[in-house]
């Protein structure tokens, strides 16, 4: 290579891998810290190693009792799965609709600052708590059964869809909004003719994705008594009915697989 004399530029003789953290000192430091953390955390957890050591034979025993899966009570299974699907469908429908106003209020380029802050706070608050905590509160208010489950799923759907919608609206090019405003359009007209055509495909995609996520989540809210296949699963597990449990787990896997397949298919067509 022809390097002009005196510039001091020299091609490196050895190749080095590109690292995310360039300094080797900091890199090793992180590794040492990670190892130290593992030791510290494992020591503070107070693990009963004797009990854990019994785990492997227990797992073998459990698997032996799970296989073959027992599909003989398929009526109960089908009813549970159907209830889960219905919960997911209802929750997605209401979540989709209720998320629109919240999503619009959470877009900083459309609404005044106080409205934006309130909407964003609601979105963050409803995202923080795990579905099961929300489900327990709804079970206390509405009693056992699918109502609590549906409401839980609605809450999580609203926060998810509205967050995506708000971000989508904020990322829009300001040109169209300005153009429609320049024609003297009112706020509803702005929403109908400018915001909705631009955000609809993504909004529908997110909603369909949420349907698929709701199917997954509807299988678990039942554990605290909020209906669906999860309730059947929890009951069979507490009765050590492991062969029926495996049948339920396999049905859940099939259900989620088809839900995901459907969601991917619809989203592929939307594009």
């Amino acid at each position: 290579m022809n390097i002009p004399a005196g510039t001091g530029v020299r091609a490196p003789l050895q190749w080095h891998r590109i690292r995310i953290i360039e300094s080797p000192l900091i890199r090793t430091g992180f590794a040492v810290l990670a190892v130290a953390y593992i030791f510290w955390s494992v020591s503070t957890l107070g693990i009963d190693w004797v009990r854990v050591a019994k785990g492997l034979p227990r797992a073998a025993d459990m698997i032996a009792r799970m296989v073959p899966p027992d599909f003989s009570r398929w009526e109960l299974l089908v009813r549970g799965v159907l209830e889960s699907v219905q919960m997911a469908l209802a929750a997605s429908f209401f979540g989709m609709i209720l998320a629109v106003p919240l999503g619009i209020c959470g877009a900083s380029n459309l609404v005044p600052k106080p409205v934006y802050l309130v909407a964003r706070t609601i979105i963050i608050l409803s995202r923080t708590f795990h579905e099961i905590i929300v489900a327990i509160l709804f079970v206390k208010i509405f009693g056992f059964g699918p109502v609590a489950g549906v409401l839980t799923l609605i809450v999580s759907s609203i926060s998810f869809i509205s967050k995506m919608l708000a971000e989508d609206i904020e990322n829009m090019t300001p040109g169209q909004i300005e153009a429609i405003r320049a024609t003297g359009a009112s706020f509803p007209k702005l929403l109908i003719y400018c915001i909705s055509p631009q955000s609809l495909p993504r909004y529908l995609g997110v909603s369909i994705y949420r349907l698929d996520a709701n199917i997954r989540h509807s299988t678990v809210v039942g554990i605290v008594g909020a209906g669906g296949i999860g309730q059947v699963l929890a009951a069979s597990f507490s009765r050590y009915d492991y062969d029926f449990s495996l049948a339920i787990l396999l049905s859940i896997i099939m259900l989620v697989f088809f839900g995901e397949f459907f969601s991917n298919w619809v989203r592929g067509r939307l594009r």
Partner: protein
Amino acid sequence: MNVEQHAQKYPEVWRRFSPRETLVRYSWYLGIVFIAVWSVSNLDIPWLYFLDAHIQAADLAVRMWPPDWDYVDRLTGPLIETIHIATLGTAVTVVIAFPVAFIAARNTTFNSVTWFIGRFILVASRSINTVVWGLIFVAIFGPGPVAGIWAIAFRSIGFMGKLIAEAIEEIDEGTVEAIEATGASRLQVLLIGIIPQVLPVIYGTTVYRWDINIRESTVLGFVGAGGIGILLYSSINQFLWQEVAVIMLAVFGVVIVSEFISATVRQRIS
């Protein structure tokens, strides 16, 4: 083009959709509403409970106030345990998810059988919720954080494995070919050709999943798999709502902080 044709092509009033499109659109709406109505009506919802729901909710809020601040001292231990479960679970996940992703990616898998096995592991892991994995691992390892760590790990393998597998499928094949051309072994191709390309994705998804796992580990205690959920569950069952309020505030704080950390780290990586 005569006047009539012109008027048909460029009508006085502009419409976004043709009549046919409108019809299709409205039938879609009708179908969606029909599905929603069918679902709700089949769930046999006791509508009577909605009448006094606001009273019940207000009652719950009153019972929660004021939060029992003395309870905070007993929370720090379980809170740290919750974070440990999430972190160690995520660490275990990274170790397991990479090989699974490697056989689940079309361009690195050995044959179609291994590809199918990899895909099945990813789907099964994602389909079963963390809490359900918790039920299973509590039955195996007994109640405690070990069950929680495995539950977190088994649910996260599917999530991280899927994202890493997608990243592996999208790598630049040129680099891999160049390294193969130097006569590198399969392992060397993996270490020098593939891993550096997917490393940012691995880091990013790890931090992202860690943040989700913190949220998940707060409820693992409900099935006895350790963490703050144990306290939350027992307080709820004893109707000690003032304690529940404190625990929920603590959970809120931890989740918000972890989300902030995760967002900051991900921003710096990308």
